[in-house]
């Protein structure tokens, strides 16, 4: 059963005084099955981030709808939306978005605390995750005291601690060195194998090659998609790379 359905999504930005209109998304349709690991690729300006923001209900589409786990998220009111997002969606950002006033542990607890969970429950949930992500020793540290890779792992922990239906990742390796990036990608793959559905936006071929399916977006439309199937990471990497070259040279699929 598909966990996320995107139907005829359209987003038009207009300047404040209604002057120029920019069409960020023209017509986006796709669906995500439970347990999938999807990468959305595209150049900058192709509408990736707009799409992600709409999927995560941080932004509203001009038309079309997004159905997450059978619920149309455009129909959920602002006050319920926060609650909905907290329970169903995990978010990993390029620039970590950890709060500098919290320890890593408290940062990870943030969505649970907002849902009114008890400290003991939260601790119980955190322990296995922290072990998996190898951040047990740095939980009491503040974001400025740890490396980028560690910060991002803490952010991943925050995203998955609520046991969300879907984890969105926006260029999660963008601010990391290659070693930390590789480590993080392996981590995502591992989480995915454990059953977590992941939707990642990236323009790094390397990142995309870890996914099970790659969607290509151009000029506000889903232009093409390829499945990994039984390919190795390396083989899939080449496939993606070829596709991008083709797309860049303006070819039609």
């Amino acid at each position: 059963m598909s966990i996320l359905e995107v139907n005829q999504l359209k987003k038009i930005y207009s300047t404040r005084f209604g002057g120029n209109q920019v069409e960020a998304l023209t017509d986006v349709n796709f669906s995500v099955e439970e347990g999938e690991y999807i990468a959305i690729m595209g150049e900058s300006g192709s509408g990736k981030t707009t799409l992600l923001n709409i999927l995560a209900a941080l932004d509203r589409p001009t038309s079309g709808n997004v159905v997450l786990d059978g619920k149309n998220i455009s129909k959920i009111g602002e006050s319920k939306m926060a609650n909905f997002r907290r329970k169903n969606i995990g978010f990993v950002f390029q620039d970590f978005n950890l709060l500098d006033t919290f320890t890593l542990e408290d940062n990870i607890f943030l969505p649970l605390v907002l849902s009114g969970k008890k400290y003991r429950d939260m601790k119980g949930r955190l322990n296995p995750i922290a072990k998996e992500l190898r951040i047990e020793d740095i939980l009491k540290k503040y974001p400025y005291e740890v490396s980028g890779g560690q910060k991002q792992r803490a952010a991943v922990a925050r995203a998955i601690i609520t046991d969300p239906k879907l984890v969105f990742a926006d260029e999660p390796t963008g601010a990391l060195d290659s070693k930390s990036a590789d480590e993080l990608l392996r981590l995502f793959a591992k989480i995915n194998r454990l059953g977590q559905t992941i939707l990642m936006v990236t323009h790094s071929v390397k990142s995309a090659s870890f996914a099970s399916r790659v969607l290509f977006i151009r000029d506000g439309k889903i232009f093409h998609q390829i499945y990994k199937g039984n390919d190795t990471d390396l083989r899939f990497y080449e496939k993606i790379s070829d596709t991008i070259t083709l797309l860049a040279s303006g070819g039609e699929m």
Partner: protein
Amino acid sequence: MKLGFYLKCAIEGIKKNRKIYIPYILMSSVMFAMCYIIYSLKDSESVAKVSLFINAGFFPWVFAFFSGLVLFYTNSFLIKRRKKEFGLYNVLGMNKFNISKILFFETLIILAIVIIFGIIGGFLLYKLAETLLLSMLGGNIDYQLIVSSNASMWTAIVFCIIFVLIFLNSLRQISFSNAISLVKSENFGEKPPKSNIIFGIIGLLLLIFAYTLTLTATGYTMGYSFFISIILVIVSTYIIMISSSVFICKILKKNKPYYYKPNHFISISSMIYRIKRNGAGLASICVLLTMIQFIISTYMFVTFVTDDMLKCQYPQQNTQVRVTEENYERLLSGDNIKIKRELLNFAGENDVNVKNYLEYRSVSFHSYSMPIYGNKINMSGEKASYSDDEHKFIQWEIIPIEDYNKNMGTNETLNHGEAVVHMLGAEYDKDTVSFAWGDEQEKTFKIVDKQLEPMKIDRSWYIPKLVIFVSDIKEAKEIENIISRCGGGNQELISYGFQFRFDIDCPDDKTKDFIKNLREKTYEIYDNLKLKGIITNNYYQSKYVDFKDIKELLFLSIFFIILFMLVVILIMYYKQVFEGYEDANRFDIMKKVGISKREIKKSVNSQLLLTFFAPLILTGLHTIFSTIMLCRIINSDAYHDYASFVFVVATSFILLSILYCIMYKVTSKVYYNIVGGVNKN
């Protein structure tokens, strides 16, 4: 052309930072206007006739100094916030000299605006200030409108000096840092503040000590102790605000079930940072509010006590003439009739009605530490017992019963050695009263239980008084003989003579002249009759002339209240603006994690409320103790109306709190605008 470019940069710089520069410019202008007004008052002829402090001329300098101090610190704070901007200019290839040119033009533009606004504002408000001052001091108000060129020049020059210093300080701030650190200056990874428990405890102990001092200080050390406690309160406010509030947040954080609650979680963790960064600012707000409240309380205190004091001093008759005469024979000879006639004739000549006429002979003196030993008042001091209770002045007045009868129209008699005691705020519950000088002389009176309607006799407002009626003037004289033996300083306190008291009844405008003439007249009587001494007092004289200087000080303190208020507003405003910018990012993150606008607002509200109302609460506490302190200064049975004094102080505190809340409401709008604005993107 080049200079034109820098000028443009400067204008842009101010425009871009208008959120922080508009309040700064406005405040500078108001300060300019106030300096201008104070200086003009000094120059005003009608003010010169009645004022004491303003004439002295140092006050404009004092005020300019404080204004300069405030502006200097505000500006250095603003420049610190703009370091990033200047760092960017530097990275883009401007050297520090170029940047200093921009800064120079910025300072120049601001100064020009301030001078223009300041002179206009000063001119408009000057007449108001002058009218207020003259009506307080009773001068002649004229309605001419003039711009004082002297004052404009002086204020302009003083502000030029202030702004030159401000400019130099900005240069210093810019030049001590390199480009990268300028760009990054806002992004330092922040360590969570360390709580210094020892400091916190010291602060708390200091505060408790200061409060205890206001509660326990007695006697002569009172003023001194109160002064110390005021200093201690200020110091401890700073220490507590800075250190122990972090400490309290940390304790709350340790309490896991409490900390991990949706509204406490965000509040407490960011409060720690907020308080650390703003501890000094919050403490300043608290100290300034306390000072404002203290000035207001003191004003209330003075007006209340003045009136009460005068009511004490003039229990019935508004005019007193007190004649001191040591020649005992003259007291019997009828000189009093001569004096009375002169006074009444004089009043008649001036068309002034005299009512409630009262005249008596008396011996009056003061004693320190009520030297009562058993039931003996021993002025030699040898046998005096000093307990804390007796540690105060007592005023005595010995009046022959015949003089009482004459005034009250009664026919009471007392035998030799008998006395009736009337107590005015003093306590004396013995059967007899003895006056002694060591063991040598002693005069003992048996106290008779006779109900006499009290004569309305004056007393010093804070000194209790015992009035003793004796059988005749001879016995009064005997007491005087004993008392006068103690010699030295006390001798001067003994007055022996006549008291004349009456109400003058004439139109208000005539009163002033009459009092002045009456004074001349009494000196004439004094010369003609060759008396030892004569004193004239008058209620109106005391009220409108003798307390004039206090009123002038109060008028001047209004300027300081305005100044303090402005500083409070400025601190609040800048806190809101800069916290807004810092928090905007934070709330953006939280929104992505899943927090609704309503929850954000709730958390922000509870934080802002706590940070802004902590100073108000502490101010309230300080005010309670300063009120106790003032009440203890009154510490007299003459003053009974503590309740209405407390009521007025409480009312003024409530008004101040409301004003503070309004300021908070207005400035927090700025905060919400900033936080909400970023969220929209």
